Every structure is written in C-alpha cells, then in structure tokens.
C-alpha cells in the first residue's frame, strides 16, 4: 500500500476513534466504546507493522519513510510541514505505542466496565495515542512539540478523569503545569537550535550538528540541547520536575500503564535519541543528563522502598527506570536507552496492569499492607506479575536483565561514562530489587491481611489476556539485544538485532581504541546481578519470613527513614519556596501595585484637577453685577495693554 495512505490511517484511526466516542460520550456503552477504541488502535498497529515491514526491506543506511501532508507554519526561513517519518528509531516507538496500546485498551474494557464515563475515557485514550503518534512520527522539533503538548493535555484529562475528587483534579493540574515548565524550556531549546542552524527538522539538525564536540558551555548545541533536556525532565519525570508523576497515579490504572509507564514518559528519552548527533556534539549536556539520570534512578528507588500504595511504588519505580534510560543516553549509548525504553514498556505496563487487576479484585484498595497471599486467588495475575518482577530486578534471561546490564556496562566503559555512574546504577538496581520484592511479598505472598469483607477474585479474560501477552514479552523482549559476551556462549551466537537495527541511524561515541576484556564484562554483570539477587533475597526474608525486622530497621533509622518516606519533602519544598510565595507575591502585586500605586496615582491626578477647580469656583459667585465688573476690568486691562505697549 501507498506509504502516505498507510501513515494517514496510522495517525487518523485513533483520532476517528476519539471523535466517535467523544461525540457519543453519553450514548456509547462500555463494550461498544471499548471495542471501538481498541479496534482503532489495532488498525494503527497493523499499519505500523506494514510500515515497519517495508522499512526492513530497505537498505540499512537509507531506512526512512517520510510523508508530508501539508504545510503548517511557513514564515521566512521557518518552514514546518505536517511531516511524519518512520525510521528505525520511530519504528520501535510506534510498535510499542500501538502494540502495548492495543493491549491496554483491551484491558480497560474490563477495568472500566462499571464506570459511567467509559466512552469519554476511551475517547481520551484514543486522543492520547493520536498525540503520541504525532510526537514520535513528527519530522521536526515543532511537529514533535505538537504531540508533546498534546500528550500532556490528554494526561491532564485522564489523571483528572474522576474530576469530582478535588485531589485528582489537582493532580492533573500539577502534571500539566509541571510539564509546562519543561515545555517552556523546550521552546527555548527550539529557538536556540533554529537560530543557529536555521531548521527544526531532526534529520537536518543531525546533519548540521558540529562533528567536533563543543567544549564550551555556551555553544548553541550545548545550550540548545540543555534546554531540550530540561523539557525532557518535565515530560519524563526526572529531577527536578519528577514530582507530578507519583501524583499522576490518581488516574485510572490502565492510564498509568499506558501514559505514565510505557509511552508518554519515555518521550524525553526518545527526543534525545532522535537528536542523537546534536546531543553527542554537546558532551557537557550529556554529562548533566547522565548525572541527573543516575541521581533520579537512585533517589526514586529509595523512595520506592518506603511507599505503601501499590501504584506509588510502581510510580517511583518508573521514575527510577526512566533515570536509567537517561543515564544510558547521557553516556552516549542511545541504542541502549531505546532498548531499555522498550523492555521497560513491556514489564512496567505489565506490572501496572497487574496492579490494576489487583486493585480491581480488592475493590479499589491500593494499600499493600491490606493485601498479602493473593497468589492463590489470582494465579494468572500473580504469575505474570512474577515475570515482570524478574524482568525489572534484572534476572537473566528476562527482558530487563539485558537492557539494564547493557546500561551499566556502557556507564562504566563508554568514553563518556564514569565508574561512579556505574556504582549509582548498581545501587539503584539493588534498591529496585528490594522494593520490587517487597511489593511482591506484601501483595502476593506471605500471610493474608485482606479485610474479611473483601473477596479477591481473578479478573476476567479481557484483563488477563493482555497480562499474559505482556508477560511473554517481558521474557522474550530482551532477546532482541543480547550483548556479545552472552551471545558468544549461546548456541548459534544470536546477533544483537537491536544494535544492527539502530546502529546506522545513531551517531554514538566512537569506541575505537577502547578495549575492555570480556572477563571484565562478565565480572561487572556478576556483581550487579549478584547484588540484586542478594537484595531480593533479603527483602523476601524481611517481608515473608520475619515481618517485624523491617519495622525495627525503619525505627532505628529514625529521621532518615521519615525523610525518605515523606519523599524527601520535595513537594513541601516546592510549595513553601516557590508556589506559595509566588501566590502571596501576586496578591501583593494586585493589592499594592494595581490598587495602591497605579490607581492611586490616577486618583491623585484627578484630585489635583478637582482641587484646582474648587479654587477657581469661588470666583463664580452668581452675582451678575460682579461678572459685569470683571468684564469691565478685563476690558480696561486689555485696552491698557494694547495702548501702553
């Protein structure tokens, strides 16, 4: 089929779904609305497969399907079209978005079955996919920005989906405004790059990017990419703008799976990979990205260890995993960042849907202290969640192992890497293993703490099938990027498919002259996997065998524990230092500058006029003869002036 037609269907199918469900938001029932929306995304998925199949058929160096529909903004040098591109990078994204998206839509039919606004929910979800596709397919920063803001908008709508709850509405608003801070920086980044390179097109920018890395902090590439990265910290929930993501769990759980785990939050990583040549030209920016990524990975994981809400744990886990992706991008390993993005989309979507299944079974209960021993009630959820758990803590041969291990390896050995980054990564992995095992143990294993009136049950097939598919993907997903150390001992020496796929379109730091022994690779791998396994075991021991121990440890840590469990008081800090003072300041501006200064000044002018008038009015006595006298005196004065001159 014709590429532009395929692209149009790929993009518009979710949009049409949105229009239909949106227009009939009061009439469409859960099944109609749900299947309509799911079909819309499935159509997109098929289109994506067809497009990617064509892409595979092309020679490796020129894999690119570009379609331009119409000119959007054309002024002077700025020429931005509604142009969309499928290349190896966006190919991965569209497959993940539409593939995982279809599964999550399907899951939602079961999950949202009893909700009154179900058609509205699916309309929003479709709109989100539409915007996400624009984001990843857009051929320029500005087209990407359309999707970038669009997904933020849908995220806002979906987080605040149950808007009658004030806190949920507030969470949506927080997400949008925090993202807007990043977006403002993103705009500046666009301006800097456009003014320097005269284009916003990704491919032109990558072509024009300086080949010699910029040493200065004030170079266009460095400043531009730095600004874009600040934009990414908003969208992808990194320090310092990550605060919205945990709150975003106020939305329906499938939304958290789709938007706040698998797709939207990875947009920042995707953007960096998209502009890889430009970022490589700015080593200073990359250093900041790596440091922020590593710091976020560790910090979010530490908070994750102290949370009791199943979704909050997963949310902090997402923030932490996104940190890994930025760490990878920051050391110039863009391909690996994409790899982890993909595997994370599988296992984190799986875990969120699994948590949705649990919450559904527990009648909207999210506190893991009130769960336990759900294994026997929900076998399918348990087993799939189990796979997700193994994947995220990086146990071979599950998906997360390959991608996370590759990130740690690159953090150590890349010319832009540093042993400290590796150490942070390992620390994060250890903590991840701990909180994830804790989550598993408290939810599925150990003794049941379920209240008597709640009767957990396995979810319907509509919900378990997506879980099973994602569970399988969490196992095999990592096999696309097997590194050569492992590959060399496997029968048939499987190739690193992903590296071959992405390699031609990425500009990564050259590894010439850098030699690392295979032994070292095995050693590092052993250290990280071993420590993670140990940590998982410790957590298992704590939460299943001797549930009293963690409490004692928490007590002995005292203030440190409280600080972490209160999320380092970052929200309080932002409110106390920025938001509340700003509101107070605004009130002062209004009451004092507007009312006291400006209006008072104008009143003063008016009063001056009035005062002048009241002086002169005394002349107006009403006595006509006096007036006549003035006339006479005036006449004398004028005449004498004329005559005496």
């Amino acid at each position, binding site marked *: 089929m014709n590429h532009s037609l395929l692209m149009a269907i790929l993009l518009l199918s979710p949009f049409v779904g949105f229009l239909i469900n949106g227009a009939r938001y009061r009439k469409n029932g859960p099944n109609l609305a749900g299947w309509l929306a799911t079909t819309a995304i499935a159509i997109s998925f098929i289109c994506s497969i067809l497009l990617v199949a064509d892409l595979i058929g092309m020679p490796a160096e020129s894999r690119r399907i570009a379609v331009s529909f119409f000119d959007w903004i054309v002024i002077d040098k700025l020429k931005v079209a509604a142009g969309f591109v499928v290349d190896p990078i966006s190919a991965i994204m569209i497959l993940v978005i539409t593939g995982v998206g279809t599964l999550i839509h399907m899951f939602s039919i079961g999950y949202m079955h009893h909700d009154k606004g179900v058609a509205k929910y699916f309309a929003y979800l479709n709109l989100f996919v539409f915007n996400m596709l624009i984001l990843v397919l857009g051929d320029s920063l500005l087209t990407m920005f359309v999707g970038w803001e669009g997904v933020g908008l849908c995220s*806002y709508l979906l987080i605040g989906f149950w808007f009658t709850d004030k806190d949920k509405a507030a969470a949506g608003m927080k997400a949008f405004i925090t993202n807007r801070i990043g*977006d403002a920086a993103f705009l500046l980044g666009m*301006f800097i790059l456009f003014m320097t390179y005269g284009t916003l097109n990704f491919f032109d920018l990558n072509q024009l990017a300086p080949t010699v890395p910029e040493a200065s902090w004030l170079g266009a590439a460095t400043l531009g990419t730095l600004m874009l990265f600040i934009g990414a910290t908003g969208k992808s929930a990194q320090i310092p703008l990550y605060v919205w993501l945990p709150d975003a769990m106020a939305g329906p759980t499938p939304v958290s799976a789709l938007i706040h785990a698998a797709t939207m939050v990875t947009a920042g990583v995707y953007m960096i990979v998209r502009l890889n040549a430009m970022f490589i030209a700015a080593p200073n920016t990359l250093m900041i990205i790596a440091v922020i990524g590593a710091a976020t990975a560790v910090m979010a994981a530490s908070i994750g260890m102290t949370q009791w809400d199943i979704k909050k744990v997963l949310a902090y886990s997402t923030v932490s995993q996104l940190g890994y992706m930025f760490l990878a991008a920051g050391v110039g390993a863009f391909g690996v960042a994409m790899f982890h993005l993909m595997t994370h989309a599988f296992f984190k979507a799986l875990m969120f849907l699994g948590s949705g299944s649990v919450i559904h079974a527990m009648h909207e209960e999210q506190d893991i202290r009130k769960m336990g021993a759900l294994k026997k009630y929900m076998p399918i959820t348990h087993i799939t969640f189990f796979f997700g758990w193994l994947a995220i803590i990086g146990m071979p041969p599950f998906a997360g192992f390959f991608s996370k291990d590759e990130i740690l390896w690159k953090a150590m050995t890349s010319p832009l890497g540093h042993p400290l980054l590796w150490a942070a990564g390992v620390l994060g992995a250890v903590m991840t293993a701990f909180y994830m095992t804790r989550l598993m143990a408290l939810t599925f294993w150990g003794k049941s703490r379920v209240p008597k009136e709640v009767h957990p049950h396995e979810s319907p097939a509509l919900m378990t099938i997506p879980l099973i598919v994602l569970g399988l993907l969490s196992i095999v997903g990592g096999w696309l990027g097997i590194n050569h150390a492992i590959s060399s001992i496997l029968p048939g020496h499987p190739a690193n498919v992903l590296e071959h796929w992405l390699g031609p379109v990425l500009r990564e730091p050259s590894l010439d002259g850098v030699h690392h022994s295979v032994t070292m690779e095995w050693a590092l791998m052993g250290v990280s996997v071993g420590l993670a396994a140990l940590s998982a075991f410790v957590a298992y021991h704590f939460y299943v065998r001797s549930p009293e121990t963690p409490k004692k440890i928490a007590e002995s840590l005292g203030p440190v524990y409280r600080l972490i469990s209160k999320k380092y008081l970052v929200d309080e800090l932002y409110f106390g230092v920025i938001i509340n003072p700003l509101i107070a300041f605004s009130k002062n501006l209004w009451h004092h500058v507007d009312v006291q200064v400006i209006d008072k000044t104008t009143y003063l002018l008016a009063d001056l006029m009035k005062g002048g008038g009241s002086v002169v009015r005394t002349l107006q006595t009403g006595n006509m003869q006096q007036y006549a006298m003035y006339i006479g005196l005036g006449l004398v004065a004028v005449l004498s002036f004329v005559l005496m001159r």
Partner: protein
Amino acid sequence: MLLTTIVFLPVLFALLVTLWPREKSLRHLALGLSLIEFIVSLVILRDFSAATPALQFVEKHMWIERFGIQYFLGIDGISLWLVILTTFLTPVVILGSWTSIEKRVRGFHAALFLLQTAMLGTFLALDAVFFYVFWELSLIPMYFMVGIWGGARRIYATVKFFIFTMFGSLLMLVAIIYMMYLTQEGLGQMSASLLDFYQLKIPFVAGTLLSLQTLLFFAFALAFAIKVPIFPLHTWLPDAHVEAPTPGSVILAGVMLKMGTYGFLRWVIPLFPEAAEHWAWLMLLLGVIGIVYGALVAMVQPDVKKLVAYSSVSHMGYIMLGMFVFNSYGVTGGLYQMLNHGISTGALFLLIGMIYERTHSREISKYGGLAGVLPVFTIFFFIITMSSIAVPLTNGFVGEFLILMGTYQAHPWYAVVAVTGVILGAAYMLWMFKRVFFGEKGQLIMEADHPLHDLNAREIAVLVPLVILVFWMGLLPNHFIDYSKASIEHLVNNRTNYSLPLPGQTPAAPTEAQ
C-alpha cells in the same frame, strides 16, 4: 465604494434599528443586518490580492481642502483581518446577547452598530484627522454600553475608561496637528494623509527626550499604549470588563484593544522608525512586564471575569513584544495573536456571560463541580481554555510561538522572561478551571433554586464558529497569514523608509533585507 460601504453601512443599520417599529423582531433584524455586513467584508476578502503590499480598494477624496484633510480609506494585509474580525464578532455578539440584554434593546443595537462603524473606520482610515474622528467616535458607544447596560459599579468604570483613553488621545491629536504643520513645511502643502506623513523625515536625536521625533513618538505611543493596554496603564481594563455587559466585554477585548496594537503597527513604527527603534527596549520591557504581571495578578483574582481581563493584559504584552522586535516572525506572530486574542478572549467572555446568566455570580470560590452539571458548557470552555493557554493545534500556539521566536531572534533575554508567561498562563487558567469545573459541587450549584440548564441551541450556535476558527487557525495558519505576508515583509524590510504604494504603483523602495 466597497470600503465606504463597509464603514458606513452600520450607521444605516443603526438608523434602521432605531426606527424599526416592532420590538419583537428587533434582534432578528439586527442579526440579519450584521450578517450582511459580514458578507460584505467577505467580498473584500475574496477580491483582496495577497501578492502585493499596496493599498487596495482605495478611496480618496478631498474633504477639507484648506488643511489637506482627506476622506481616505484603504486596506492592506495588516488591516484586512482586523476588519474581518470586527465584522465577524458583531453577529456573534448580537446572537450572544439575545437574552442577556433586556432593557433598551433598540438603543443597544444602535450603539453596537455605531461602534462597528467607528472600529472599522479606525482600521481603514488613512488620513490622520479622519482616523482620529473614528478613534474618538469609538469611545462614545462603548461609554454608553458600559454605562447603561453594565453592572453595579458601571459609572465608575465608564468614567475611568473614558478618562484614561481620552487622556491619551488628546496628546495624539496635538501630535497630529503638529505633523500637519510639518507636512506644510516639508512638502509645501498641508496634508493629513498618512502617506504624506510617511514621507516626512522627522529629525531624531538619540539620547535626548526632547528630540522632535521622540516627542511625537511618545504622543502617539501613549494613546495607543493606553488602549492596548500595556503596563502600567492597564488598570482601566479590569474595571471596564467587570462592569461591561457581556457583548461590551467581547467587543472591548476582541476588537477595541486591537485598535491600540494596530495603531502601533500602522502609525507609530513606520512614522517614527528611529524613535521606535531607539525606544523599543522600553516597549519590550513593558510588554514583558505586562506578560508576567498580568499572569501573576490574574492568578489571584477571585472573579472569573477579572481573571480573564488580566489575562488580556498578559496576552497583549505578547503582541507588544512581537511588534517591537521588528522581524517577520515577531510581527506576523503579533498580528496573528491579535486575531487569536479576539477569538479566544471573546469566546471566554461569552462563556462567562452564559454562566452568569444562569447563576448570577462570577465568584470563583462559589463554583465547583460544574463539569458534572453542564458537560457541554464544560467542553466549550475547555477548548477555549486550551486556545488561551496556547496548546499546539489551537490558534493561540501559532501566535505565541512566532512571537517568542521573533523575540528570541532579536533579544534572547526578553524571550527567556516572556516564556515564563507560557507556564503562568497554564497555571492561572487551569487553576481557575479546576476550581470552577472540578471538585465537589460548589455553593452556587447546590443552592440553585432551579436546576442549571446546559447550553441551548442558540448558545451553541454562538460558540461553534469560534471553536471552528480556533482549530482552523491553529491547524492551517497559512490560510490567514498568506494574506498578510506581503504587507508584513514590506513593513519589516522598509521600516526606516516606509511608504504604502497606492494601487498600480510598485513599492517605492526595493524590498531588500537590511
């Protein structure tokens, strides 16, 4: 004759409305008449040639020969869309005020039509005195509109509005008269024609306030700045908006504020290029302060209408920024933002009017949970909110993006400050949206003695054209910008030596970038 028709047809309409014998069909008549006017403006659009920066449909007759004052109308890419915005908003406003204006219906529509003439005349007149007549004329119907159909403190608001704007205008009048004398000295014959004004080389000395061009620049700029309004001359605006009836607010925000920004583009920048360039920093600074200040103050307003009024201050700051960076991104963005603001803020005022008719309150804290009660209203309000905070694919984004980009090209630091407006804009609008539409049902909705009805067909008919424009302008901005491109390029490239060719003439100066 087309321009004379479009300018003076509403006067005829006003007469017709006053003389119409049947009170009942008055609104229908007014709506029909305003639609006729809109169609006439579309004829202009159809016949307009986008390829040239020259004036089109020119009508030029001597009016007062002794002073060289002419009856001089003409249109180009800069005024075209503002004219159409005016003729478009009038029927919308008439339909929107169907039930909200209850007393003196006849007078209201007559005033509206008179106002339309004044606004169109302001955009189309190319003779200084002629322009000034329309400029001042626009005050009178507005004065009555706020003073008769306004809210509780309407008299205070009208007087404030009138005195603020009048004050600026008088200085402009002095400047116009002075410039007429200059034409006599410079060109040998007194003239008030803008084209003759353009030819004047007014002496400019940098670094002193007392240089002739600087003084004239400030005399004109003050008049326009009050109208725009830019900080710190904005305090009349929130009061006027809060007290004005809905249609008055819509016209005031939608069109009358644009008279100020248009004045900068048509008069100030090309007439006093050196002074404009030299003092651009001041205008940019005030623009940026306006953006941030307006947004911050809007954030803490307890009254929805006042919030939107302050958001206008913020948005108009963007337009000032765009115009005074003197590059085609900024100026195009500024012009585009004028239209955007007319549509989205106009729509916001209409929406606020609709809810006010139902609850008789604009207090944000008394609302809450409206989304569950009035879903259709909520959808419309949300779309317009998105347009107001410039989400891509709505009209607001194109304008704001171009302005910020133009600003960045010329003065990066101003752009860095202005970009915070993007954040604050989202903050005040969404916070308001949250408090009004989300959460539990508020006091007003609980206590309403009768259930609130969602939008009726008429109200939807009012809003749909606006929503269509929001997306049309956001998705296909070139449909609109293309008409103005030639004029804007001409202005940007020949700023220091500006002239507007009459039809048939080629531009005097070669249009090369400097």
